[in-house]
């Protein structure tokens, strides 16, 4: 427990930032309950669109209930963690829904992740059962798991399972990079999902909303894309195919009258560069995950006009989004794009040296409210370090310390200022450089390693590693591919005889980067 002091100026700017964020929401309801309510009130409404296939709320519910019945008969119980490895499809949504209907917890994973990683993740989460559309290959890779085929529909009991699911039960676990070499499991409660999508300030979410499901399900933007539609009576349009293609994106959003799309910052920039009008037909583009590029934002704003592009920010630990900033006019070029104000039922404090920051003063972003995870699965020490009770003016509030730095403008709008550690974001993926370094030095031939981010000639951020090693960079790449998910394997691996040191005795990042062969 920490007591925080606040000057009058700090108090005023925090009050301005958090004003109006607490709004009524069904904080005692589970995802199961709210979805089943939607089925009762609008069972004939389209819930899912995938290619030529449409499913109404009633059809989706019946399919999920059949799979839930199968899971229950296979021994799945409330609180069990069930791995999910299904291609982005209607079946994937059916699987997620079936798992939450059992009161169980879904743990999405990607088949490209190495066995070693899956073993660690499943061990942390206590997961010994998976639902998949590739049962054969996964049964071979995960011999200790019960592997269930998502398309199994034994029995025809399409009634809602009689399982009571509480708002404080865990709905899913997402894994994120951990600096000590162990990935961190972030469990999210049902009420946190409801908090994200109920009465949203950052985008209109109701029964006319058509959300594109584009994110990999292992990425928590999918929480918004799926439940933002399905808990509000809207439609979730599933992007067909595994790989994003701008021409396909353009076609899908027009064909299905998609209203709302989330793009990672990197994909947003790519769209702006290659086909700025690809999403010309949608109402709202949410974008975030990394610091925004002002030239891209400027070009997009000129094309889309005010009010259609919303910058969003939030760590997985606070359920997808924590703050939002709608772009209403030209952005001043002298400061980064703000990350804005808290979304509904979310509060933000900037903390520095046990006090709240004044306007203009940089501090650590601390988040609170019902979006917060209860803490990292099986990591009490890391949880105690990051999730801390604070007392402000006699009121105790649980803060999540993000490690992100920001300052408040006088109006209470938040401006991002980077990190206080070596966590980086690449293509929306959160990566602890320490975890990659840890994996590299785990190779017997590597004596020393340095991992950083290098911006390519075209502005792309590339994970870049330097290793002092007798081995080849190909061998190190193969080694990393065996223990890290593909997005954490550096794009560039350079072998050096030694690493240059700066005057302070630290590895000289600038010297290393300037030694990279110039790219043609």
């Amino acid at each position: 427990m920490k007591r925080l002091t606040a000057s009058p100026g700090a108090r005023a700017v925090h009050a301005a930032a958090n004003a109006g964020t607490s709004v009524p929401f069904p904080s005692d309801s589970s995802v199961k309950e709210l979805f089943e309510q939607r089925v009762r009130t609008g069972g004939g409404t389209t819930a899912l669109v995938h290619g030529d296939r449409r499913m109404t709320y009633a059809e989706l519910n019946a399919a999920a209930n059949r799979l839930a019945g199968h899971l229950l008969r296979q021994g799945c119980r409330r609180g069990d963690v069930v791995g999910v490895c299904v291609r982005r499809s209607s079946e994937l949504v059916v699987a997620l829904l079936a798992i939450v209907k059992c009161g169980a917890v879904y743990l999405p994973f990607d088949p490209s992740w190495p066995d070693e990683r899956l073993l660690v993740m499943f061990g942390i989460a206590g997961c010994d059962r998976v639902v998949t559309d590739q049962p054969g290959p996964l049964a071979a890779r995960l011999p200790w798991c019960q592997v269930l085929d998502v398309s199994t529909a034994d029995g025809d009991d399409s009634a809602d399972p009689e399982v009571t699911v509480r708002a404080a039960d865990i709905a899913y676990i997402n894994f994120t990079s951990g600096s000590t070499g162990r990935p961190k499991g972030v469990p999210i409660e049902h009420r946190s999902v409801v908090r994200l999508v109920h009465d949203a300030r950052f985008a209109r979410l109701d029964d006319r909303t058509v959300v594109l499901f584009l994110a990999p399900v292992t990425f928590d933007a999918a929480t918004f894309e799926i439940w933002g539609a399905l808990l509000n009576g809207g439609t979730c349009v599933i992007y067909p195919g595994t790989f994003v293609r701008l021409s396909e994106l353009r076609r899908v959003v027009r064909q299905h009258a998609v209203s709302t799309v989330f793009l990672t910052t990197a994909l947003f920039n790519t769209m702006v560069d290659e086909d700025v009008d690809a999403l010309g037909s949608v109402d709202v583009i949410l974008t975030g995950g990394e610091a925004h590029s002002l030239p891209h934002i400027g070009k997009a704003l000129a094309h889309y006009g005010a009010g259609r592009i919303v910058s969003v920010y939030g760590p997985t630990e606070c359920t997808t989004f924590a703050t939002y900033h709608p772009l209403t006019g030209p952005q001043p070029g002298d400061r980064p794009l703000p990350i804005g104000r808290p979304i509904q039922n979310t509060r933000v404090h900037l903390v520095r040296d046990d006090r709240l920051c004044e306007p203009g003063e940089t501090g650590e972003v601390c988040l609170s409210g019902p979006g917060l995870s209860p803490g990292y699965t099986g990591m009490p020490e890391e949880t105690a370090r990051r999730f801390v009770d604070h007392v402000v003016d006699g009121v105790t509030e649980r803060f999540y310390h993000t490690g992100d730095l920001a300052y408040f403008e006088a109006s209470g709008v938040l401006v991002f200022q980077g990190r206080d550690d070596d966590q980086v974001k690449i293509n929306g993926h959160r990566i602890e450089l320490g975890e990659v370094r840890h994996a590299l030095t785990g190779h017997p031939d590597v004596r020393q390693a340095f991992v950083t981010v290098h911006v390519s000639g075209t502005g792309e951020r590339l994970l870049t590693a330097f290793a002092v090693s007798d081995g080849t960079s190909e061998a190190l790449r193969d080694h990393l591919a065996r223990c890290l998910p593909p997005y954490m394997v550096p794009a560039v691996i350079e072998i050096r005889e030694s690493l240059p040191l700066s005057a302070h005795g630290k590895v000289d990042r600038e010297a290393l980067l300037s030694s990279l062969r110039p790219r043609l």
Partner: protein
Amino acid sequence: MANDDIDSIQAWVVATCRDLGLSVDAGSDFFRSGGSSLTAVKLIARAEESFGEDALPPEDLFTDSGIREIAESIARNRQQVDSSPA
């Protein structure tokens, strides 16, 4: 266009990858040269702009990412402006 052979498409792939910041030559592999999933989105968009929709199916690129194989995929999939039988 009709007379484009694989070599000239390959020259286009090399030039485009270089423009995207990758140091590649005809013998390189797109991903091993630092190409990311985003660079892939860009390459595919540019291939479609130059050679027509579906000119470079993502499944092809992610399966065979050698520069030569990319050129061969485009040669197979590009829209034939002149489609008179040989």
